Each structure stands twice: as C-alpha cells, then as structure tokens.
C-alpha cells in the first residue's frame, strides 16, 4: 500500500527551507507565467521573493478561483460536540493539562444545538471534538451522525485520526468530509507541542490522509497550524502532501485551511508570526499552485481581513461560529478551543459576501446522492 511517509522521509526540513529562501524574483516570474505550476514553483510563490508580486498574484488567484468555482462562497459552521481530550497540545484550549470542566453533548443537547444552527440558515455542518477514545469514539460518532443526518445536506468531521476500519464504518452514516491537520511537518517541533496522548504519534497522524483515501472518503481537508514553525516550509509540505494524495486517491476532493494560532485561556504565544500580507500571499500561492482545491476560511481572522479575502481565492467560509460544546444553546460558557475574532452573524457575513459581488451558497451537496 502507498504511504506518504515514504515520500516525506526523502525530504529534509532544513534543506527544503533553504531552498524556499533561495528563490529569486526570476523564479517567481517563471511560476506566474507557467500554465501548470510545479512544487518548485510553489516554493517560489511562498518565498520572501514573491512579496513584491502580491498584487499580480492576487489577480491571478481571483481569476482562477472564479473560473473554477464561480462567483460563489460556500457557508459552513462548526458544531463542537465535546471538549474532552487526553492529549496535551501546547496551543489548544482543550489540552488535557488545562484543568477546566469538560463536556460531551448528549443526544438531546445536540438536537438543541442543531435547531439553532438550522435557524441560522446552515445546511453544511462541521462536527468537532477533542480526542478522548473512552467517551468520544466511533460508536458515539455513529450515533451523532444518525441523529443529525436528516437535518443537514453535508456533514464534515474534524476529530481524532481514526483507523481505516473506522472510516469505512462511518461513511455509510452520511460522513462526507474529514479534516485532519498535521499542525506541523517539523517532526522535532511536533513532539515538543504534543508531548502526551495519542496525538504525539507523528507518523500515525501523517498517514491519516492515506487511510481516508483508502476508505474512499468524498473530501478531505489538510492544513497546518500557522505559528508553530516556519510557515513557508510547513505549507510546502502541505502542498507536497496534497500533490501525493491527488495522484493516489483521485476520486477524493481536497480542501486546505490556514489557521493562525489564536489566543485561548492559558495559551501559547506563536513562535513565528505571520502578517496579514503573508497570509494573503499563502492563499494566493495555494490557488495558483492548485486550481481545483477548496480553500477554507474560519472565524479566527479579523472582520476587515475576512471582508476582503472573499474575492482573493477562498471558496468556503464559516460565520457565527462557537468553538465550545453547547456554545449555541446548551452551555454558552463551556470551555472553548480558541477565541474567535469575527463575531458577526451568518446573515451579516452573507451580506458582506453579496456586497463583494458573490453569492453565499448554503447548500451544495445532498446527502441522498451518496449511497
């Protein structure tokens, strides 16, 4: 069976990083002029040398995105089911060593949350949990999927990495998409940030997308947590991973996220800062590199940034999000994963999207289509 580890292990972090920082304006110009961009082109597009070309990159990114996706932005919202977690992660509010009361939603509570989310207009939902295999496990997910499936056209999940057999069990329950972020591809740093719990196994996480591909999942999402390590290098490895996955699991759709580290109670300061300008560069670089990949934007970013990013390459956006279990109705004050930055309602965001000349789309899938 193919495995990304085999490819990943042929790369060296420091050499890769040096290669990115050695790119010149000429390399950037070649990447911009190419009709199909290679991984070397991607290095140039995320390198410091590309900074002066940002306006041009934005124009290309906008045009490519409109050609593929049209003038529409898809709306989704997270539904946090649980903040119980046995992992220690230095950057996360749910970290095991964060001694705060924990909660996992009961079926009745889930339905209360669902009714609020539905009233906001949502039809696409993202289920989120921490990692506690005693309470939040495959049987729990099956129950939740069974419960909410009649109410949503599209269900995504961002939970702990699972075994192939688990994914095979969950897809018949209407699970369409799984997001699993590597956080960082820097192995030593990964160990530092994940000292305890199942998540400390770098390789198991790295090979999760392979298991998802083997399970024939409709869509999977990749990404790193920006702020842990050099973002340019980490994002190169994300692009490398994406390239590999597209070739091997050609029936799966892909999406990318680019969360920047946000404050939470007792949290970590980012080791590496990324400016707004650099985040725009990254979004445009991803788009120019891959015309088909979905690019997703959360409420971590500021109002002004989100208003303006709509036209620059993203395809999906969340709004009105709560990052704690019960946040919409049941227990608004429970422990949240991170502080959101844009607190505007879904309707306000929809209005922003329309004012930018785009249509907010609430439904672009139907659960009944996958048998």
């Amino acid at each position: 069976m193919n495995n990304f580890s085999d490819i990943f292990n042929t790369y060296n972090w420091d050499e890769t990083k040096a290669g990115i920082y050695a790119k010149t304006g000429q390399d950037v110009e070649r990447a911009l002029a190419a009709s199909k961009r290679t991984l070397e082109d991607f290095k140039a597009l995320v390198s410091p040398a590309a900074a002066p070309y940002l306006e041009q990159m934005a124009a290309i990114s906008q045009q490519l995105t409109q050609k593929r996706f049209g003038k529409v932005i898809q709306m989704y919202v997270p539904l946090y089911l649980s903040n119980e977690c046995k992992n220690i992660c230095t950057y996360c509010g749910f970290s095991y060593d964060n001694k705060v009361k924990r909660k996992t939603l009961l079926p009745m509570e889930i339905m209360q949350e669902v009714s609020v989310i539905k009233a906001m207009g949502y039809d696409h939902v993202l289920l989120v949990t921490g990692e506690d295999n005693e309470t939040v496990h495959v049987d729990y997910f099956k129950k939740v999927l069974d419960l909410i499936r009649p109410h949503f056209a599209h269900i995504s999940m961002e939970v702990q990495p699972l075994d192939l057999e688990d994914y095979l069990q969950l897809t018949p329950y209407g699970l369409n998409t799984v997001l699993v972020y590597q956080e960082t591809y820097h192995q030593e740093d990964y160990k530092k940030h994940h000292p305890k719990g199942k998540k400390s196994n770098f390789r198991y996480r790295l090979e999760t997308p392979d298991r998802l591909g083997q399970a024939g999942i409709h869509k999977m999402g990749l990404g790193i947590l920006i702020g842990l390590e050099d973002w340019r290098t980490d994002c190169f490895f994300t692009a490398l991973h994406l390239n590999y996955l597209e070739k091997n699991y050609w029936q799966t759709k892909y999406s990318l996220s680019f969360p920047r580290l946000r404050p939470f109670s007792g949290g970590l300061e980012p080791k590496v800062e990324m400016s707004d300008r650099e985040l725009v560069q990254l979004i445009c670089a991803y788009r120019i590199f891959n015309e088909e990949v979905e690019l997703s934007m959360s409420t971590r970013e500021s109002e002004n940034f989100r208003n303006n990013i709509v036209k620059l390459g993203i395809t999906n956006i969340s709004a009105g999000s709560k990052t704690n279990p019960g946040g919409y109705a049941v227990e608004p004050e429970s422990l949240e994963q991170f502080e959101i930055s844009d607190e505007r309602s879904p309707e306000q965001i929809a209005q922003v999207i329309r004012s930018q000349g785009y249509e907010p789309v609430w439904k672009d899938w139907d659960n009944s289509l996958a048998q």
Partner: protein
Amino acid sequence: MLTIADKIFNSRLFTGTGKFSSSILMEEALLASGSELVTVALKRVDIKNNDQDDLLNRLKYQHINLLPNTSGVRNAKEAVFAAQLAREALETNWIKLEIHPDPKYLMPDPIETLKATEELAKLGFIVLPYIHADPVLCKRLEDAGTSAVMPLGSPIGSNKGLKTIDFLEIIISQSNVPVIVDAGIGSPSDAAWAMEIGADAVLVNTAIAVSGNPVQMAKAFKMAVEAGRLAFEAKLALPVTHAVASSPLISFLDE
C-alpha cells in the same frame, strides 16, 4: 427547430445555473440567452422543499424547461438514484447524466455512464449524458436508448474551446440522436464554430456566469449560436488552401 424526445426547441443554446454572483443576475442572463433548456445541479437545490428554493423559483417561466443534473455522483447506482429523486421532486423525466468520479478535472466515466443510461432509458427517462468526445461511446449510448449525446469540447469550466474538434466532427457525422456540445465553450466564437460543424445545440454556463457582464454575454452567445446554425444550414463554402492553376500532373491525359 430542434427536437429532442418529445420536446421542440426554438433555441439551440442550453444553459446552466452555477457560478453566478447572484440568483437575480442568473435569471436576467438566462432570459437574455433565450435558452429553453436550463440545467440545475440536484445537489444545489432544496429537493425536499423545492417550492421555497430561491434558485428554482427564478426559473419558473413558461419557455424554460428544467434539466436536472446528477453532478456529484460517482457511479451508475448513485446516478440512477439521483435521477429518481429528481423525477419525483421536479416532476420531469429529463435527466442530464453527469458521472465524474474524478473531482479534479471532472472527467466523465464512460463505463458507469453507459450502464446508467441503459437503466434510466428502461425506466422511461429522457437521458442526456455528458461524455468525453468518444465516437464509439456515442454509438453505444444510442443502442442503450439515449435521447441525445453531450460530448465535451474541452475540460469542463476551462473555457478552452473545441479541443476535441476532430472527434466532434466524427460524432456529428454518424449520430442518429442530437449532439449537444457541452463543456469548454469559452466564447461566442467557439459556440458559433460548434454550430457551424453541425452540432444540434451547445450548453454554456461558465463562460456566461463568470464574464464581466453575464446578461450581455448571454445575448452574445444567443446571437452566435443562431449565426452558426444559419451558416451550417446555408452550407459553408469550403476553404481553399492553395490556388488551382493548370494541372501539370494530369495534363498528359489531354495529350
């Protein structure tokens, strides 16, 4: 006039509903196009409460026929199920069969498409399958009971024009069902070209929806399709690549 199954069309421009910046603009553009057959992705509309669906409500015109499509399905089984859902919800037995298991380039799966066409035709559907420009597949689909064929001009949404021109010409020359060039048509001149070579109709979406002025572009496509059809019916003068002078090669015949 074009006849497909039991319907007669005055317009040979078919259109789609995706990618528009608003549903109002979509409505205006589709009206300007004069199109009488408009495809709608089943996944995009509220099938259960279709009376309340904004997109569907904007298509309620006497002259507009809905053509639900199965975009998003990955095999024949899912496609047949989707077609049945569409028939029930939208009260039409017309179905645009789109089976692309490859979500990157959205290339149609010929094997699953043939299987689904066979089954749907037996179930009484008017099937319009989206396919690669493959002449043999077109004949096989005819045998399976298809009502038309919809070969691609170039990759869907690419606006690259008629890259498959040689195969389209073969398909048109031997088809017993209407041939609708679907996907890749990027400009009115591409549409006119498709009509000039004898396509029965074209389907255009991205090139209208993503243009600077979709209403005006829709009108431009309408005119181009009409011009191309007129030219086809008038029979084009064949191009001459070199002058014909005296014939040294066969002059011996007159000796």
